[in-house]
């Protein structure tokens, strides 16, 4: 009887062990990365009994160890694609996985009770990390970038060759710009250009500087005064240079005054307070807001509205656009801000860029319609082509 029980127990042990063996264990260098991670996968265990087990990945720098344990993972757990970026050596600080190094990895299944004895252990797999030269997981975005670049460049070239075939819809805010500047000149008051709150490396700021160049040229021609408030010293420097060049181009270098392009404050609400102060004291006839704005948008434009100035705003800040619409005479919404420079200069190659943009937009609309259609019909494959991975 005792023998029978012993055999049964051994059989049960085997059963338990084989049920908890680590199957399909694989270790690979993480693809499309800088060589700083390893990906560990194993077959997900689903047996009811395994609720009482832990899984633990062990990593070593030499094949014969020592193996350093990673955090214990409780059941149920996804067995695919566990990323190892570092480990803790005993008594030492944490260590990162580095490129061009060989690591040895195994996996243990531990008993869930207090004893934490090893139930089973996988084979040891070695892996050498390396950095990759192309992120294939970003292939879709790369191809879209190439497509849009080619389309936009083609239209720029086309526009240069056929300058009269371009139609650009009216943008009321930009048409009103000249009148607004003329008004400032007639009233003998200044115009104020308020920059948004982003740095010079951001596209809305660059677009604002482009518009500033056009406004400054008109101002120089009209012999009026333009004041430009800045939140960022680099934007201030670039704006000074832009306005100076515009004055030179208009043949009025003598009327350029560097102190008119000033740094108001480096803090959001200090900036708002400084600019509002200027509005109230100097009562500019025309105020322009171009760039990316935050909560200060309404503070500025409402104060400007009270002073009776003509206000033209342009921003791609989604949450601030309603505030500009309610308080300004004209508002350029989103991409109109980027189109303004091309629209004002009427230069064919700049307008060609706008046309290219429209074709890009058509392509996006088409993809959206097809994606919605296919997904509704139960096939996600098309949508997945455009998913980030």
């Amino acid at each position, binding site marked *: 009887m005792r023998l029978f029980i012993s055999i049964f127990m051994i059989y049960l042990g085997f059963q338990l062990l084989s049920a908890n063996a680590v199957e399909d264990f694989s270790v690979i260098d993480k693809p499309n990365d800088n060589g700083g991670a390893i990906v560990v996968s194993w077959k997900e265990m689903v047996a009811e009994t395994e609720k009482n087990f832990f899984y633990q990945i062990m990593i070593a720098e030499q094949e014969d160890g020592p193996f350093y344990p990673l955090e214990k993972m409780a059941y149920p757990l996804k067995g695919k694609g566990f990323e190892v970026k*570092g480990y803790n050596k005993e008594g030492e600080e*944490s260590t*990162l996985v580095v490129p061009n190094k060989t690591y040895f990895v195994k996996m243990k299944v531990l008993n869930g009770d207090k004893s934490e004895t090893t139930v089973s252990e996988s084979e040891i797999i070695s892996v050498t990390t390396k950095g990759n030269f192309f992120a294939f997981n970003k292939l879709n975005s790369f191809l879209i970038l190439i497509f849009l670049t080619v389309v936009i460049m083609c239209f720029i070239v086309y526009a240069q060759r056929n300058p009269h075939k371009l139609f650009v819809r009216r943008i009321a805010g930009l048409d009103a710009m000249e009148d607004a500047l003329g008004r400032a000149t007639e009233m003998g008051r200044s115009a104020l250009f308020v920059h948004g*709150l982003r740095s010079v490396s951001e596209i809305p700021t660059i677009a604002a500087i482009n518009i500033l160049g056009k406004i400054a040229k008109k101002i120089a021609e009209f012999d009026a005064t333009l004041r430009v408030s800045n939140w960022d010293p680099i934007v201030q420097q670039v704006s000074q240079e832009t306005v100076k060049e515009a004055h030179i181009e208009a043949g009025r270098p003598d009327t350029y005054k560097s102190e008119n392009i000033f740094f108001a404050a480096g*803090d959001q609400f200090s900036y708002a307070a400084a600019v509002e102060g200027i509005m109230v004291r100097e009562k500019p006839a025309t105020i322009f807001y171009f760039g*990316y704005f935050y*909560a200060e948008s309404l503070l500025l434009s409402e104060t400007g509205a009270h002073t009776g100035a003509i206000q033209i705003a342009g921003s791609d800040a989604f949450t601030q656009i309603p505030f500009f619409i309610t308080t300004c005479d004209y508002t350029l919404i989103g991409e109109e801000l980027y189109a303004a420079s091309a629209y004002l200069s009427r230069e064919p190659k700049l307008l060609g860029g706008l046309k290219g943009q429209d074709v890009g937009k058509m392509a996006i609309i088409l993809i959206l319609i097809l994606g919605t259609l296919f997904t509704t019909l139960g096939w996600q494959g098309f949508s997945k082509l455009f998913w980030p991975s």
Partner: protein
Amino acid sequence: MGMQMKFDLKKLFNLDRRIIYLLIFLSILIPFLVEFDLPIKANKDVKNIFNKIEDVAKNKGHQGSILLSFDFDNASKAELEPMARSLLAHAFKNNLRVIAMGHWPNGVELAKSILNDLAREFKKEYGEDWVYLGYRPGVSILIINMGKDFKSAFQTDAFGKNTKELAATKNIKTINDIDYVISLSAGSGGIEDWVVYGRSKYHFELGGACTAVMAADFYPFLQSGQLNGLIGGLAGAAQYETLLGRPAEAVSGMRPQSIAHIVLIFFILFGNFCYLIDRFYLSKRS
């Protein structure tokens, strides 16, 4: 008679803005002084953040850590401080480790005072239970660095202590070793940067807390799953306080906010009423 009425309506139509300011002021002040209860029901986005912290606590216990990024300053303190307090209280109550930092240099003092208050209340030890890393410049590059090598991004904490020696940060190799990241954001250098440079590159769990005016900006991130939850404005903060069973500033702030919204709605309706009457008389005359 008609002309007289029209004249009066014109006057009403061009209501002096100081009257509007006064009524808004009173609609905020009086509900602060008079107490009454309002039903506060948490929405799914707030619940998601609450549940995530509960999950981390359940699965990891004291080994679980959350990172709070104080990306705001005093200007938006009224909305974001109650959120920060509730999140900290939730984490401390569940014995989670808290790592705090911030992308806004002007928010450092504020963050320190909030952290100190809550740590004192829950009797938490600095270094063991919580760490404040302070401000580092760079926003995007800082987040990328945290994803690559946490210790090189923050060699020391805000008080000059080595992060390799503090129990709460000792074992953090990259940001992926932190169980949950929440950005309390009031503008540039906040949730959007965490999504673009952090979540998209390193795939950690990210939650957001922001001012009410910004909340609409982040809904696409919620739908795409790049943010697992969002606490928006004082209303969101009040919902979190209610879930936590710790009603404080935000819950009491719901009274003035509710009344101010109603006053605002009244003004808009009244303005439209005047406008329609005006148009009616105009069309009648012509």
